[in-house]
């Protein structure tokens, strides 16, 4: 799967949890999920589970510690596909 396609699906999955919708319009690989998109940190687990379901992958707890930006999520998922 192309990275751009993964990125597109990641952004689509993130959208319901994003509190700053303006930031979503300018989303890039460097966009910070918690700080820029204002996703509630306690809900990050729901986002990750949605990644698991959508891409049919399994993500370990420790992997989530490396996910700060949209790019981190895309790279993590791409590495598991």
């Amino acid at each position, binding site marked *: 799967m192309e990275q751009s396609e993964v990125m597109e699906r990641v952004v689509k999955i993130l959208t319901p949890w994003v509190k700053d919708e303006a930031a979503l319009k300018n989303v890039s690989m460097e966009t910070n999920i*918690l700080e820029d998109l204002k996703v*509630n*940190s*306690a809900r990050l*687990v*729901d986002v*990750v*589970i*949605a990644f*698991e*379901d959508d891409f049919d992958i*399994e*993500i*370990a*707890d*420790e992997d*989530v*510690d*490396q*996910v*700060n930006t949209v790019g981190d999520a895309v790279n993590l998922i791409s590495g598991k596909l």
Partner: protein
Amino acid sequence: MASVTGGGQEPEEGPRSDHASSVTDRAGSTRALDRASSGVSGQAAGQGPGRESGRRAGREASRKAAPAAFDREMVRRHAVQRAVSMLAGPLWVTASVLVMRFHFRYRIANVSRLRRQYRQIRAQTDAPMLVCANHLTLVDSFIIAWALGSGFYWLRHPDELPWNTPESTNFGRTWLSRLLIFLAKCIPITRGGAREEVGGVLVRVKYLLGRGETALLFPEAGRSRSGRVEESAAAWGVGRIVGAVPGCRVLCVYMRGRRQETWGDYPAKGDTMDVEIACIEPKSDAKGVRRSRDLAQQIVRQLIRMEEDYFDARQ
């Protein structure tokens, strides 16, 4: 272990609730965590494995995680803080209880019964124990320590006195507050902070639980803004810890001042605290992040049940 469907509200994605838990209640008996379920073969904490296998579970947790997960610097820092806080413990525990009793004039209802119940739970096994409580005020961790044991008890069992993970923005602003939280067995955490920093705190909590020490976490992460335990606020970090420490039991603590309507900085002066405890051993057959969320939800649901019982009893 039978599968149980969780009784509480399911989150949007709907976890595979392949979990069953057991709970040791006030009388020390065992009942299925989910009231509606039947055929659950939950194993009571303290039954079956016994103290020796509990010790083994703790040692196993440390051994499994030791070389790779725990870096030397963290282990060294922990050893230093533990030693210093053990020396300072008699002073700060006594001081905090005196302040709560005579300055704030707090009282804990049925404190003797509570402490006896806590000692009974502790006597069942040496398996790792995480304390999880509802969270309404800034002094909740002090009240829990006061409720569960006397100063003399904590002197005799210093590793049972829980480590705390206060929000660093609340407690780490001045050098004095940083010194106090260092002495008072605190590991500051920044809620919503960098994932690696938060992950580092969780690793340290796993480490100390595996060593037979105790930690206190608030599974809702922060003080409950609604004044009630909120399942939707369940932080999954607590599930990560429980899932990573074999045999880990969770002592659920529900506490509330009789005049405590909602969250705040401190309970009202002169308030009487009602405190209840229940010991559970959350289990999940799910994997990865989903497992952590599943375990965290079991803990929060137990606290919700205790809250319901509390308000039912008040009516």
